[in-house]
């Protein structure tokens, strides 16, 4: 569905992503992992058309630079890490924006599914009782859920989520990832999540892309890429050992 070839991104002199190729097919859940500054969010930005890049990204064979923004938003939903409220919109008003790409015609009426999709997204993210809440009064986790609801009601075919579990408490993280799993069961869909939690990446992702200093350090089936040895060389620490130590503290 989504294919990146020889992707390179530079910020001034610095090359943050170097000659990366990636192919995401229907039904796949790609997790993008790697240390800080590895280029994970930059990759999400390039796929979401907010970062300029060299190389090509195609959606169903079409160069995404040639796809109008509104049409792209109907196919690809992006949750970025950069959102902070300045004005006191209500939760409902922000989630509403997810339906923007569905308006048609000059007066842009006619989105018959709008209300239902919004209700559904609000329910899925546990916001049904908070429709009228002011964004400026929300906690970090609540605000994260609002933008999750927005991208869900956008009803795309591909979800690109940059750190979707940001600020979320454990029950919600669990709920979120099993929800994405359910979402993916419909045909014609795929997911890319950028994440730090390697255990979550291993448990939920079908595929993984391991990045290090802007370069690919391994990609393919999650079980084959996310091995203790590979993580050790990329993170320069015994990741697996550390996770075991953490678990063992509970046994005392």
């Amino acid at each position, binding site marked *: 569905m989504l294919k990146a070839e020889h992707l390179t991104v530079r910020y001034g002199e610095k090359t943050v992503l170097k000659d990366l190729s990636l192919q995401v097919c229907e039904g796949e859940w790609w997790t993008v992992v790697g240390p800080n500054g590895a280029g994970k969010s930059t990759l999400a930005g390039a796929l*979401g*058309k*907010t970062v300029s890049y060299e190389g090509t990204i195609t959606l169903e064979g079409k160069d995404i630079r040639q796809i*109008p*923004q*509104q*049409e*792209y*938003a*109907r196919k690809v*939903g*992006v*949750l*970025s890490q*950069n*959102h*902070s*409220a*300045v*004005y*006191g*919109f*209500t939760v*409902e*008003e*922000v989630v*509403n*924006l*997810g*339906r*923007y*790409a569905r*308006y048609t015609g000059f007066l*842009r*009426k*006619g*989105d*018959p*599914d*709008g*209300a*239902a999709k*919004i209700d559904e997204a609000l329910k899925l993210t546990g916001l049904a009782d908070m429709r009228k809440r*002011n964004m*400026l*009064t929300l906690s970090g986790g609540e605000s994260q859920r609002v*933008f999750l609801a*927005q*991208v869900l009601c*956008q009803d795309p075919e591909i979800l690109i989520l940059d750190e979707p579990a940001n600020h979320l408490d454990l029950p919600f993280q669990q709920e979120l990832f099993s929800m994405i799993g359910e979402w993916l069961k419909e045909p014609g869909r795929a997911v890319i999540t950028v994440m730090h939690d390697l255990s979550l990446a291993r448990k939920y992702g079908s595929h993984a892309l391991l990045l290090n200093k802007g370069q690919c350090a391994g990609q393919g089936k999650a079980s084959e890429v996310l091995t203790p040895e590979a993580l050790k060389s990329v993170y320069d620490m015994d990741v697996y050992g550390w996770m075991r130590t953490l678990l063992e503290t509970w046994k005392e």
Partner: protein
Amino acid sequence: MKNSPQKEGGLGFGPAVLWTGLALVTFVACVSLGSVNISLRDVWNSVFGGEVSRETYRSIIWWTRLPRVLCAGLMGAALSLCGAAMQGLLRNPLADGSTLGVSSGAALGAALSIVLGITIPGLETAGPAAMAMLFAFGSLLLILALAWGIDRSFATHNIILIGVVFTMLVSALLSILITFSGEKLRSITYWTMGSLSGKSYEQAGVLLGGLILFGTPLFLQSRELNAFAVGEENALHVGVPVRRVKLTVMICASALIGICVSIGGSIAFVGLIIPHMVRLAAGPNHRKLLPLSAFAGAIFLMLADLAARSLLSPLELPIGVVTSLIGAVVFIVIFYRSRKGGVR
């Protein structure tokens, strides 16, 4: 509700009628009041051709008050609408229609024309207005070219910074001009502080035309402005053609501001505080914010103009002084109360 499946919080029919009514009442009051108070009956009869208690009233109403109050209302609506749109677009409640520096650029143009005696052959009085329009347009081009040169995306923080620096540069130039202006100082002040005295129906017509031509696209961008106000990157992700909307809003707002300045001088503060107060009261949804700002701006400027011409009558205060004075006080009171009470 079948055809509008989403609740989008537009201005309903009831409030629209209410605000139109309020604006009309203000309009009539401002036509009737002033250095000479004229009874409503006389106002009615002067307009619709009945007996008037004094014949001079008829010409005051027809040739002084009506065009002037019309201009005040239209200008207030335009300034406030532009301010609301720019505050949303730039995600900054300190922005207004003149953030791009168009307003001070226009004032410089008018001052130049006064000091150098530039006029248009055949239309001697229109020199400053024409120069104001020209300079407004020039400023806009200059600022957009600079922002385009820095990066192709018209990043909002660049635009705000360039606008602020440009405004400072222009006011320095304006101060130099004022130093050399001698006895022409008064007519320069007229442009820098704004005045609505001696406005004509033609000017009201130009304002109305500008409001229709450039205001309508602003109203049509209310959904996009909502997306911008929530976040520019987020706007792109939900499908807003970000650059096109940015250019549309900036060009329309600047053109409208340019027209306003060329007619009434640069009137400070209306475009800043009116949208801000409306947002405090009605929330930030532009489907409601834009029309409400236009109404509130019209009412505010008509009243401010009434104060400017009648408080120290027969002297007339520059209207920019009145808007800043009243505006600042009212704003501080409302802002203080709302911040104590909760968050908006």
